[in-house]
């Protein structure tokens, strides 16, 4: 078998296709930050424990630090840079601003990408560990949001306002749906 330690891939990020050759060891996180200069996605623990690197892959949230770039080929990546519509913030971004859902801001891009997906998961009636009866659709409640956002750590401890911001955005989405 011929040895191929690096691979030519095309990555579709925020609607734009990029062709690049990556060492197979490169994570999606490093490809975004170091190769495509999309530094909004943050590196926290680099072990899948903190959620700072959360991006959307085919519209589902993932830890980009554990996703090999080579294995993301052909899939749609959305980062924090791809959420706003021009100058108009995404409703979840706006809710974080309105309700002061951050302090230092380092975990915020991951929190917001995760929250965007949480709201979609609730709309699809996915259950969570906070759902009383998994046979029934989950409620849109602070308890559900808290559980679903548990993969995103905030060392400043801004959780109170993060939960308020995500809950408000989720309830607005419910009204508009």
């Amino acid at each position, binding site marked *: 078998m011929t040895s191929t330690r690096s691979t030519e891939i095309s990555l579709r990020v925020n609607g734009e296709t990029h062709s690049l050759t990556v060492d197979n*060891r490169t994570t999606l996180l490093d490809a975004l930050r170091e190769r495509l200069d999309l530094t909004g996605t943050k590196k926290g623990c680099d072990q899948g424990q903190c959620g700072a690197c959360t991006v959307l892959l085919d519209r589902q949230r993932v830890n980009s630090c*554990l996703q*090999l770039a080579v*294995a993301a080929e052909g899939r749609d990546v959305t980062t924090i840079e791809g959420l706003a519509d021009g100058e108009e913030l995404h409703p979840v971004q706006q809710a974080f601003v309105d309700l002061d859902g951050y302090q230092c801001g380092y975990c915020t891009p991951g929190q917001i990408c995760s929250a965007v997906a949480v709201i979609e998961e609730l709309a699809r009636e996915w259950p969570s560990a906070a759902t009383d009866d998994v*046979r029934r659709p989950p409620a849109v409640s602070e308890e559900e949001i808290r559980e679903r956002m*548990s993969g995103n750590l905030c060392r400043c401890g801004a959780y109170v306002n993060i939960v308020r911001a995500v809950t408000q955005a989720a309830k607005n989405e419910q009204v508009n749906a």
Partner: protein
Amino acid sequence: MREFDYRRAADAHEAVALLSGEPEARFLGGGTNLVDLMKTGVENPALLVDVRGLPLDRIEVAGDGALTIGATMTNSDLAAHPEVRHRYPALAEAVLAGASGQLRNMATVGGNLLQRTRCGYFTDLSRPCNKREPGSGCSALNGEHHNHAILGWSEHCVATNPSDMAVALAAFDAVVRVLTPEGSAEIPLADFYLPVGDTPHRETALPDGALITGVTLPAAPVAARSRYRKVRERASYAFANGSIAAALHVEDGTVRDVRIAFGAVASRPWRAREAERALIGGPATPEAFAAAADAELAAARPLAHNGYKVPLIRNLVVSTLTELQEAAR
């Protein structure tokens, strides 16, 4: 991280063929455990065969009601599936009790079955570990082991299996379906995880080079009334200190069918057959539930710092079975 080759397989047979004769190759599913272990140097594959895109990402329902869950289905899709939520709620609850939303979106069913222990010494390359380096010794036996095994361990390894999903699968008599270069085979989950003995590095009965293609859950009416409960050191996103998957069917106060499995107590999900035997045909009372738990836990050998797990599991048995019985009334 060591450099590695990367191949993507189009179907299960191609995946098995690509891995064949490559002892240093690994299948790549969601990568949530494997990529992490490659970063820390515990795993050093020369080739990754990517199986995530294989067409094994759905649930098939057989005529007799059995479910076959495809190996590349994500943990999220498994927990959200209506057949699982309604007919095996403890399985949906177990999956949702594990990891985070992000990780469940990546992790596959096959990968979940093969995830490695979270014993801190296993990932600490500076310390002896028989699982990582056979013959080097077990650092946990007389070290930090407050969350290690109380059942089925040996002096060679006291680590636990970290999967929540596998506990529910064990309770419902799941069968693991595999593909090898010789053909397909089935391994009951009860035989899938090997006893620790003196070979803790050999964790499963999976033949060399075999690919997990799915997991079959036999039809089990009792599973429709089932629960998974998990005790951990924080409210969410942590491995268990102890967990239980249980299902109960009572008629006129008498236990007609019961399934019980424990998590975080052994190197494998622990099916509590002694407890089940003690309960069948007897009264469904808290006293009977406690006696059944004691019958199972008579075999427990707690370590110096994890004796709390014995009453923890006993209490989980009593409270979970009591809850199931009250919900059925």
